[in-house]
């Protein structure tokens, strides 16, 4: 097979688009099934997310009269593209870390903001008061969790001796130290907020805002948002595994070990989702800036002390 064809196949089929979408839909089934089991229900069948997407693709698209049409229609595609790029990058690090440039942690941080930015753009273009409230909450939420998330990655960079290449970070496991564990726990909560899961789902807020950010989206455009969420369900836990837990399948570990780590992070996220009520946006800001901020400042100091004294466990 020729080289360009091979690369195209990688981007579109195996570690890229088709594979990630399928895995993401299975992951969103896992979320619904585990939530159902926690609530003593039976839960939806395995193919439910596939049916949902198929059905949405076959429905009518309604665009509100006062909406900014171009931005409203383009925003879902921007979000999907950003999160697909992130997941393809992470799969390449998991399967062929030695090949070419596969991106560093700073690129990943930017790509992870892209879905939230696209959501803010799309929903503020939709001219709906419900979506406007959701947008304002999402903006505040992004501002509150970005700071702790970046600080958690600073801890990782210190622990791995100043590495910013994801492939190099994936060879070590900072979670096996005190400061790394703190950083992992905080970034797990940030991932919860990025996914828009309870307790940080105030931007969607089904009970008071209808569905907030997604209020005016229907048909295929809503399907694209759902696909984006499904892929985030793959990409974000995978990112945590890559950064904190020593990568997916690297360092001679069998593949099952990597899948186990991913499932562990996913189930932790689902259990947090099911055992907490939603917090208000001001409570979330205070939580991320004050409590998580202090915990991570302590983690940075611990990591630096550990580095200078040569104690790897700190």
């Amino acid at each position, binding site marked *: 097979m020729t080289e360009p064809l091979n690369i195209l196949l990688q981007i579109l089929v195996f570690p890229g688009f088709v594979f990630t979408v399928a895995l993401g839909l299975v992951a969103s089934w896992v979320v*619904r099934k585990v939530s*159902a089991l926690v*609530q*003593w*229900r*039976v*839960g*939806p*069948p395995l*193919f*439910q997310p596939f*049916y*949902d997407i*198929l*059905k949405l693709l*076959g*429905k*009518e*698209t*309604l665009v509100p009269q006062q909406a900014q049409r171009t931005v409203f229609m383009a925003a879902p595609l921007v979000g999907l593209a950003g999160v697909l790029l992130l997941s393809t990058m992470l799969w390449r690090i998991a399967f062929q870390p030695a090949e070419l440039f596969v991106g560093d942690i700073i690129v990943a941080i930017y790509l992870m903001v892209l879905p939230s930015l696209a959501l803010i753009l799309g929903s503020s273009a939709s001219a709906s008061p*419900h979506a406007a409230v959701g947008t304002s909450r999402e903006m505040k939420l992004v501002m509150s969790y970005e700071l702790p998330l970046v600080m958690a990655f600073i801890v990782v960079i210190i622990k791995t001796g100043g590495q910013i290449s994801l492939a190099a970070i994936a060879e070590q496991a900072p979670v096996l130290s005190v400061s790394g564990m703190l950083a992992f726990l905080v970034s797990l909560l940030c991932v919860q907020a990025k996914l828009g899961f309870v307790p940080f789902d105030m931007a969607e807020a*089904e*009970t008071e*805002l*209808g*569905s907030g950010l*997604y*209020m*005016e*989206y*229907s*048909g295929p455009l*809503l399907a694209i948002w759902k696909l984006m969420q499904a892929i985030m369900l793959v990409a974000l836990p995978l990112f945590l595994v890559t950064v904190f837990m020593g990568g997916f399948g690297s360092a001679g570990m069998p593949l099952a070990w990597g899948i186990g780590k991913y499932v562990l992070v996913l189930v932790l996220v689902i259990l947090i989702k099911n055992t907490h009520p939603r917090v208000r946006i001001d409570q979330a800001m205070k939580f991320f800036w004050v409590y998580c901020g202090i915990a991570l400042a302590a983690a940075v100091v611990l990591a630096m002390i550990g580095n200078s004294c040569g104690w790897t466990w700190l």
Partner: protein
Amino acid sequence: MWSLKKSVWVFHVNTGACNNCDIEIVDCLTPKFDIERLGIKLVGSPRHADALLVTGGVTAQAAPRLREVYRQTPKPCIVFAIGACACDKGIFTTGYHMVGPVDKIIKEVDPNAIIAYVPGCPPKPEAIISGVLKALAVL
């Protein structure tokens, strides 16, 4: 249409019901009945909905709202008239404030609308689920 039968997202519209049918609809969502196993999910926006669960005999105040909600729902969509009032105004047949029933109001907007009826005062959760499934089977 095939995938619509497997995944029905419903939006609940109260057009002046006494709240009894609404309580029975909420009952369907409880772990005991768990309609999510049939792919049915309650959504918060008519734009996401495939089916409208309409309760009540449509008061004069609610009629324009019901028409607007139906227009805002992306097609194809199904309208379920839940309860005796929604089906034929029930005990409010001679009520001065009732302009319904539901099918009359919906057909003013769209004469070809798909409307299914679940009678009862109120219908049991089992009756609502079986009504929805029977309607989906003949679709």
